[in-house]
């Protein structure tokens, strides 16, 4: 078993800069947790604390009930896959994968079997005699994963492993990581700033900003019921449209439009009557019929969908319509919103 408990972890550097605040998370055995957030939000620092590459300033880190907070990295039984692969260029793929086991002075025949098994999983068997320089980026990343697999660690850590790959390869390698997780059933912590990776890979997502955990939940929870404005705007592509609206007489009103609230929304927003709140509408929740006028300034056909960017008076809006549209700049489209999110203007928390 490899359950992880990260109890109130904090990272404060010597210059008093605090990178991580009160990070609290329980990871179940075999779970894939994705830490997501913009650059500088503290996700990699958290991962490095787990790996033992950064000291933990406050809090406890427990693996399988054992406190490893002060334990050196080599004794934690954790394997990390880096963004830049960190392969030894003078060694063959076989040697790269076997290296950590050789350092442990394991039996050479056992090392051989482990390396072959990992290569088989990652479809690298035919590449074992090559040097890293002869492989593509995706293959190199698979070698880095293979090096982690052969160790059979308690926990796998991935620090933005797909960032150096092109879009096509990224998507293919993402699927491989997902298959690998299913096959190994290993506990994994995965850091990325790419929300697509987060949504597609994670059992649970930890969304971070400025060193604080914003929300922990399943991908659907984060997408469907974002805890605050940050999560709402960060998760989802294109990002959610946000409007300041006043709640008045069962309507959400701003200078450009008035939207009728449903009975459930009216009840939820009752304490905010007469106040200004932030209303969020995902582009895919904008419907191509209604009474709100959008002045189109661009039309992006994506095949299955079309992104229509425009303005409703002063406010910019992005709509994601199903099918192929041919709007031109200057066209007017009538739209309505079929799903709305509301956030407190002061706290930025979701109004529930």
């Amino acid at each position, binding site marked *: *078993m*490899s359950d992880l408990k990260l109890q109130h972890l904090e990272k404060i550097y010597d210059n008093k800069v605090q990178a991580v605040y009160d990070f609290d998370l329980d990871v179940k*055995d*075999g779970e894939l947790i994705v830490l997501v957030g913009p650059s500088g939000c503290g996700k990699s620092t958290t991962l490095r604390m787990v790996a033992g590459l950064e000291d933990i300033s406050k809090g406890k880190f427990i693996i399988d009930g054992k406190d490893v907070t002060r334990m050196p990295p080599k004794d934690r039984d954790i394997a990390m896959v880096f963004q830049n692969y960190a392969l030894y260029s003078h060694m*063959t793929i*076989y*040697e790269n994968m076997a290296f950590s086991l050789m350092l442990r002075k394991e039996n*050479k*025949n056992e090392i*051989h*079997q*482990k*390396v*072959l*098994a*990992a290569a088989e*999983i990652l479809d690298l068997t035919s590449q*074992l*005699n090559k040097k890293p320089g002869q492989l593509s980026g995706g293959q190199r990343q698979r070698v880095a994963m293979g090096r982690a*697999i*052969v160790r*059979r660690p308690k926990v796998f850590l991935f620090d933005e492993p797909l960032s150096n790959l092109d879009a096509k390869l990224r998507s293919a390698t993402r699927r491989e990581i997902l298959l690998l997780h299913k*096959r*190994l*059933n*290993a506990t994994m912590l995965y850091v990325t700033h790419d929300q697509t990776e987060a949504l597609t890979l994670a059992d649970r997502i930890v969304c971070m900003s400025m060193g604080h955990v914003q929300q922990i939940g399943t991908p659907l929870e984060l997408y469907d019921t974002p805890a605050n404005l940050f999560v709402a705007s960060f998760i989802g592509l294109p990002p959610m449209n946000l409007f300041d609206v006043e709640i008045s007489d069962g309507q959400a009103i701003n200078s450009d439009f008035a939207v009728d609230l449903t009975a459930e929304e009216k009840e939820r927003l009752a304490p905010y009557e007469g106040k200004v709140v932030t209303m969020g509408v995902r582009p895919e929740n904008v419907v191509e019929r209604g009474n709100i006028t959008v002045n189109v300034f661009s039309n992006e056909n994506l095949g299955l969908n079309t992104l229509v960017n425009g303005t409703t008076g002063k406010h910019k809006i992005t709509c994601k319509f199903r099918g192929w549209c041919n709007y031109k700049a200057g066209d007017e489209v009538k739209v309505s919103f079929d799903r709305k999110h509301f956030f407190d203007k002061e706290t930025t928390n979701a109004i529930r």
Partner: protein
Amino acid sequence: MPLAREGVCDMPVRNDAEIRKDRLRFTKNKLSANLIIFAIVANALYFVSIYSSDVGSYYYKLFIGGSIVYNLVFMLAAFLSSEGIKNYKLGYACSSVVLGILQICRIFYIPMKAHKAANPVADAKNATVMGSGQFRYVSFCLIVSAVLLIAAGIIGFMKTTTLNSYLAELERKGQEGTDDE
């Protein structure tokens, strides 16, 4: 630990001898290559000793030039053998053995002759170009160099033939598998 994770690295049960053979496919013959490098070092100790000694005119006239050329050729050939043998090339294993035999022959050339030859520049009567101590030392260097080269060659030969027969066996099995289909 979940069973699925343990099962990941499970391989069909094979005996140690077969695994050792299979390892040759992915590992280089570093043992033989390193033995040859040590043989080059032993040879270097040999020629440093003979060139630093008071050899008098005898050597200069007859052997030194040839000896320097031979040592250069030897080091190049030995290094090439080291690289070739590392990659399981049968020819280089043979060349390594030949170089080892030549090293033994060298004992009977410069060291032996110099040990027997009178030194015209030495003050003492009956003094030889190479004293007994130095003769034993350079002979030892050449013998060590020869033994290392021959050992490297034999090990290289054995590993290479083992690997070649294993690869042939794999190929045969592969073909049989294809035929079965």
